[in-house]
C-alpha cells in the first residue's frame, strides 16, 4: 500500500490530490444520480432536481427506435433482438460455418424486410422514417459485411505483381484514407445523386452505407495487408508444392493466418467502424445518436443532456466493450495455431 501510493513526494502529492477530487466528486455524483434524482413523474418534477431519469423512462422508445411509427415499434425491436441473437450464435468458432453465413444473409434480409414492410400486410415504412438503434446496428453489420471481402481483394491487389491491380488498390486505399469520413459522407450523399442521370435516386440510407463501406474497406485492407506480410513465404510454397492453386492457397493457407495475426488491429478498426456510424447524423439519418438529440428537443422537458448521452454511451460501450473482450478471447484461442 504505502509503497504504491506514497513512495516519493510526487506520487504522494498525486495520491492526495486524487483523494480530494474523489472525495468531493463522489458525493456530488451520487446525489445527482441517486439521492436528488427523479425517477418517476412529469417534466415539472425535473426542474431544479438531480438526474432526470424519468425523461429516459418516457423517451427511451423514441431514442431506440427514432421516428418509426409508434404502433409498429415491435418490428425494430424484433430486428434488434434478431441481430443480437445472430451475433451471439456466431461467437463460438465451431459455429463459423457456411450455414452460419447463410443464417446471417437470411437474418439481415428478414431484418430489412421487417423494417421496410409493404409485404405480408405490414405497413410500409420508408427508410426516411427508420431510426435509432436498428439503424446503427444495420449500418454496422452491413458496412462490415460488405467491406470485409472488398478489403481482402484490395489487400491482395495491393500486393499483386500486375501493375494495374496494385496501382488501382493503392490509389483507392490512399485516397480514401486521406479523406475524413465526413467528406466521404457528403460526397456520397450530395455529389453522387448529382452525378446520376435524372429520375434515378438512391436511398439516403444506401448512400450512407456506401460511404461507411468504402471507408471501412480502405482501413481494413491496410490491416489485412499487414497480416499478409507477416505470413512466411514458405507457407504458400508448401501449398503450391502440394498442387494447390492460387485461390486455394490464398483462401485456405495465407488469409486465415494473415487474419489471425492481426486480430488486435482488426478489432480496433471494427470498433472505429461501429462508432463511425454515428456520423451519419450529419446527412440527416436517424441513428441512435441523432434520435437521442431529437428526443432532447422536446420543449415539454428541461432537456436532460447528460442523462440522454449517458444512456447512448452505455449502449455504444456495451457493443464496443463486448467486441474487444471477444477479440481477446479469440486471440487466446488462436494462440496455439499461430507460429
Amino acid at each position: 500500500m504505502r509503497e504504491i501510493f506514497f513512495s516519493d513526494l510526487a506520487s504522494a502529492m498525486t495520491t492526495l490530490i486524487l483523494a480530494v477530487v474523489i472525495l468531493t466528486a463522489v458525493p456530488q455524483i451520487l446525489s445527482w444520480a441517486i439521492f436528488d434524482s427523479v425517477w418517476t413523474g412529469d417534466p415539472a418534477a425535473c426542474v431544479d432536481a438531480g438526474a432526470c431519469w424519468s425523461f429516459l423512462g418516457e423517451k427511451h422508445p423514441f431514442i431506440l427506435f427514432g421516428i418509426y411509427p409508434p404502433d409498429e415499434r415491435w418490428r425494430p425491436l424484433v430486428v434488434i433482438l434478431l441481430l443480437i441473437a445472430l451475433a451471439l450464435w456466431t461467437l463460438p468458432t465451431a459455429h463459423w460455418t457456411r450455414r452460419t453465413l447463410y443464417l446471417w444473409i437470411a437474418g439481415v434480409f428478414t431484418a430489412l424486410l421487417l423494417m421496410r414492410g409493404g409485404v405480408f400486410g405490414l405497413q410500409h415504412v420508408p427508410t426516411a422514417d427508420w431510426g435509432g438503434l436498428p439503424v446503427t446496428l444495420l449500418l454496422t453489420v452491413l458496412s462490415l459485411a460488405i467491406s470485409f471481402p472488398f478489403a481482402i481483394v484490395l489487400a491482395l491487389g495491393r500486393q499483386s505483381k500486375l501493375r494495374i491491380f496494385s496501382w488501382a488498390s493503392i490509389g483507392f486505399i490512399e485516397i480514401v484514407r486521406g479523406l475524413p469520413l465526413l467528406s466521404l459522407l457528403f460526397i456520397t450523399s450530395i455529389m453522387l445523386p448529382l452525378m446520376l442521370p435524372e429520375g434515378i435516386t438512391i436511398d439516403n440510407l444506401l448512400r450512407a452505407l456506401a460511404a461507411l463501406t468504402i471507408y471501412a474497406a480502405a482501413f481494413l485492407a491496410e490491416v489485412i495487408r499487414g497480416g499478409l506480410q507477416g505470413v512466411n513465404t514458405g507457407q504458400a510454397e508448401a501449398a503450391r508444392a502440394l498442387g494447390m492453386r492460387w485461390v486455394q492457397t490464398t483462401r485456405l493457407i495465407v488469409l486465415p493466418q494473415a487474419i489471425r495475426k492481426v486480430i488486435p488491429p482488426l478489432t480496433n478498426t471494427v470498433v472505429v467502424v461501429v462508432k463511425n456510424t454515428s456520423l451519419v447524423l450529419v446527412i440527416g439519418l436517424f441513428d441512435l445518436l441523432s434520435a437521442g438529440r431529437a428526443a432532447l428537443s422536446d420543449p415539454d422537458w428541461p432537456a436532460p443532456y447528460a442523462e440522454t448521452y449517458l444512456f447512448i454511451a452505455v449502449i455504444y460501450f456495451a457493443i464496443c466493450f463486448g467486441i474487444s473482450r471477444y477479440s481477446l478471447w479469440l486471440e487466446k484461442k488462436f494462440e496455439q495455431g499461430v507460429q
Partner: protein
Amino acid sequence: MSQTSNAPIIRMNSVHKWFDEYHALRNIDLNVREGEKLVICGPSGSGKSTLIRCINALENHDEGDITVNGNTLTRDLKSINDIRRDIGMVFQSFNLFPHLTVLENCTLAPVQVKKTPLGKAAETARHYLERVKIPEQADKFPGQLSGGQQQRVAIARALCMEPKIMLFDEPTSALDTEMVKEVLDIMVSLAGEGMTMLCVTHEMGFARKVADRVIFMDEGQIIEINDPTSFFDNPQHERTRAFLSQIMH
C-alpha cells in the same frame, strides 16, 4: 541398390536459371531413373535448392527442358499442376500449416487437389502418420510438436498425395542433433520402398547408405556425379575434394 528401372522419370536438358543478373543454374543436364536416390551436396549458394525447386516449378527455369514422368514443364499452369501431382517436397523449415492440426495438414491437399472424400483422406493420413511413427499426434497443432516430429509430419503430408518423386531440401539442417536420426530413419525406410528421391543434404552417412549417385554442385554447375563409394573415397575433381575435406572435419 533397390529395384530401379531404366526409364528416366526426370530429365533436365541444358537447364539455365537466372535471378536477374545472377546465373544461378548453368547448363544442367541430369536424368533420374525411376526409383533412383540422388544426394545433392555443395557449398552454400551453389544452386542446390534452385535445382530441385525448378523440378516442381517453385522456380521457373529460363532455358532448357525439364520433363517429369512424361510431362514437359512449361509456364502453362496445367503443365505445372500435372507435374506437382507427381512430386512431394520437404523443406528445411518444415512449412507445416500452423493453423491446422496435424491431421488437417495431411488431408487438406488430397481433399482440395485430388477431391478425395474427407473420410478416405483421413484414413490415408492416419496410415502415413503411422509410417512416420507419430499417429498419436494427429489432433495436435504443429506448434505443439518438436522439430523432428514436425519434419516427420511434413514427410507424411507430402506422402499423402502419393507422389512418385520426393524432393528434400536440407530436411535435417534445422534440427537439433538428437532429432536428426529420427527423420533420417524415415527417409531410409522410404528409400527402401523404391521411392524416387532427390535429397539436398550434407548427411554423408545417409548418402553412403541410400544414395545411388551423389552430385556435387558449385557455382550453379554440376561438377561431379558418382556412386557414393567412388564419390567419397576417390573424388575426381579438385573442388569436390576441397568441399569434402571441409565437411568431414
